[in-house]
Structures are given as C-alpha cells and as structure tokens.
C-alpha cells in the first residue's frame, strides 16, 4: 500500500500527525491508518532481543515491559499525559524523528535496531544510524516502521529529562543510560540537544575504561567522584545544542552534565546494591 501511495502519510496514535492536520500545517492527500494494523501491536522475544511492534503504546511499554526495559519505561512515563501515552507509540516517535522524542535516548543507549518494511522486504537499521537530521530519518518513501528490537536489560538503566513541569512537557534536554553488566559496557543517549538524538561515545569509552581499570564491575566498587564529573563533561561535550524557546545552548550543556553525573551515580548505586542476573 505504501509502495502504491508513497506520499501517503502514515498515522498511528495521531499525537503528532493530528496536531499538524488540526493546525493546517499539513494537508496530506491520503493517510494510512496503522492503528488498525493488528500485527503492529504485538511484541515478543527474538534471538535474545525483544521485537516490539511499532504500534505498541507507551502505556503498554510501561505496564507490560517495564521490568525488562526499565530505561525505555522511565522515558515512556515522561511522555505527555495518560491520554497521550494511551495513543502514542515508539513507532510514531521514530517516524517523526524529532530530536526531542523521549523514546530516542533509551533506544540509543540500549543499541536498539529499527525494523523497516516495504514491498521489497525487511531491513534493519541500528538506531544510531536511523536519525539523519532534524525530523529526518533513514526511511525510504516506500517503507513503514514495523518494529524495533531491543535487548532486555542486563543491568541498571536510567532516564532523566529536564522540563518546566513533570507532565505534558517537551524535553529541554534528556539523557538515557544503559549499564550492560554482561558485556561490561556503558551506553548513552542524548535528547533535545543536537540536530538529532545522539550518543556520547567518548563518555562511554571513558567510563568503560574507569570501570575496567579499577576492576569495579567485579568488585562492585565505588566510583571516584572526579570520574563522574569527567563523564558528565564528556556527555555535555557530545551535545550540539542550540538556543531556542525552551532553553539556551549553555543551559542544555550544563544540565546534561548534571543529568549524566546523577543518572550514572543512581545506576551504579543500584548495580552495587544488588547482583544482576
């Protein structure tokens, strides 16, 4: 259907698309209703990953997958309101590809993969390569987002977001952290502070080095506060923020350093307190 109507606008929960239509910012000739495609509502295990249909709502991610995907569930809880979480989907977030989308940082931190479907077949793209510009993704016009694949947590995960209130807020900036205790890896994701959602590769490498050198994964040892500060600075340096109505670039950098430091401290504290299977 998408191949036959490449300009048709896909709509799922409508929480982005309907705003565009209601405000007459876009007037598509045709729309494809994905909310009525039952296959997109399924999720299940696949080769050690969870394959989650693009139509699974934030409400369901929180209630059905919160134990296995704590980082994504935390981010989902900050999306809009109950009404919005009942309709909005991660698939829609990926389709809109707004740098401020709340699902993106945890997808990046957990190295999720996006599954695209077309009449030519299926292709899978790492989330890290999926965001190509502000509100632009790597999807072709004949493709639709079918699902995303993400590994269940192998350690503590965190998400933190700055906004003017707890609900109904677009992120001023946000940060997601995944600790992979199995592979001894650190994953990051930054939202709303660059033209696209981005990772902080240097910060990840730095922290992995600190943890490896000190044998801290095995010892479940304490982290030197100066390492946390350095981690925060490297996360802030990975951002490319702008001044806009929600905040200044300088504020975003400062806030990201704080979020990174705090979320790492919380996650590491959780790792030290309990053994992770």
């Amino acid at each position, binding site marked *: 259907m998408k191949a036959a109507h490449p300009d048709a606008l896909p709509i799922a929960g*409508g929480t982005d*698309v309907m705003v565009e*239509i209601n405000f007459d910012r876009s007037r*598509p000739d045709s729309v494809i209703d994905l909310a009525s495609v039952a296959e997109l509502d399924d999720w299940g295990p696949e080769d050690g990953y969870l394959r989650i249909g693009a139509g699974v709502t934030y409400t369901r991610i929180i209630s059905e997958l919160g134990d296995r995907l704590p980082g994504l569930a935390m981010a989902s809880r900050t999306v*809009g*309101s109950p009404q919005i979480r009942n*309709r909005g989907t991660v698939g829609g977030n990926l389709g809109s590809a707004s740098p401020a989308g709340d699902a993106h940082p945890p997808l990046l931190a957990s190295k999720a993969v996006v599954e695209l479907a077309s009449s030519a077949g299926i292709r899978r793209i790492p989330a890290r390569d999926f965001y190509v510009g502000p509100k632009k993704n790597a999807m072709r016009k004949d493709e639709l987002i079918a699902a995303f694949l993400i590994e269940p947590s192998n350690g503590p995960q965190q998400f933190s977001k700055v906004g003017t209130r*707890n609900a109904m807020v677009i992120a001023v900036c946000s940060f997601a952290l995944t600790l992979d205790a199995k592979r001894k890896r650190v994953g990051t994701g930054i939202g709303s502070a660059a033209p696209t959602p981005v990772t902080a590769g240097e910060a990840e490498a730095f922290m992995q080095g600190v943890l490896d050198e000190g044998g801290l994964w095995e010892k479940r040892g304490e982290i030197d506060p100066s390492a946390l500060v350095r981690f925060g600075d490297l996360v802030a340096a990975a951002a490319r923020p702008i001044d806009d109505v929600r905040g200044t670039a300088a504020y975003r950098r400062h806030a990201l350093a704080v979020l990174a430091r705090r979320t790492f401290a919380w996650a590491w504290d959780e790792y030290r307190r309990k053994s992770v299977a």
Partner: protein
Amino acid sequence: MKVTFTVNGQRVSADEVWEGESLLYILRERLGLYGSKNACEQGECGSCSVYVDGTLVCACLVLGGQAQGRDIVTVEGIADGHALHPVQQAFVEAGAVQCGFCTPGLIVAAHDLLRHTPEPTTVEIREALAGNICRCTGYAKILDAVHLAAERMAST
C-alpha cells in the same frame, strides 16, 4: 467518506467526513455531542477526553477514519440517564466546577482513574489528571472531588 461507529451505546454514522477531520469534530459538529470541548486541538488540555474501545484518549488526536467500527463513550455517556455518576456528583458538591469548560474532560479522566485505581492517593490523582488543564480552580477542589468520589464509590 462515511464513518460509522458506536457512541454511548448507539450506532451512528457521519457522511461526507473530510479525511483529515478529527473524532472531536465529528462528535461536536456532526453528531451534536457538545460535551467534549474543543480547545487546544493538540492533546495538551484534555478537554476533549473520551473513551475509544475503553481507552482514555483525546478525541482531537483521533482521526475520524480511525473511529470506524470503534466503541466511543463521551461525557454524555457517563451519567445514568438523569442520575449523575458519583464522579459528577462529587465535582458539584466539592466545588470543583467553576467556568465548567474543563469539567467534562476531567470527569472522563477521573472516571478512568477510578476504574483502574479505586482508592487513589493524591499523587496518583495528580498524575492521572496531568493531561487536563483547568484555568479557574487551582485544582485543589478537583482533588477533593476525586477523593470524595472514591470514598463514595468504595462504600457502595
């Protein structure tokens, strides 16, 4: 395009619906159900809260065509005839209604909360109603009303 669905238990149809039309527009302008209010048209204010297949949503964000075959309940379907629902009665008694514009959306959202969480804490009420904006009351009386409704519904 023609859209057919159930609203408050009755089968209804709307003809010549424009493809970009919202469920809210159909309810108000084509079916004369003015309880769901039209304010922000972007899902921010909650004034158009309705149930679609039992799920609380903003009617302004549901594309008309997406309502095809669905079961819709609006604020008009909350009361039992002329007998107010306990949530509605509690809003009246607690003084949770001032100008009244946000009230229908808050009634539906509070109704949904109490279906899932019969004895909510104040924090749970705040989170459940975070998507409903009221510009008059300052919310204190609304919180009182939801607590009152919960007490009454628990004792019946």
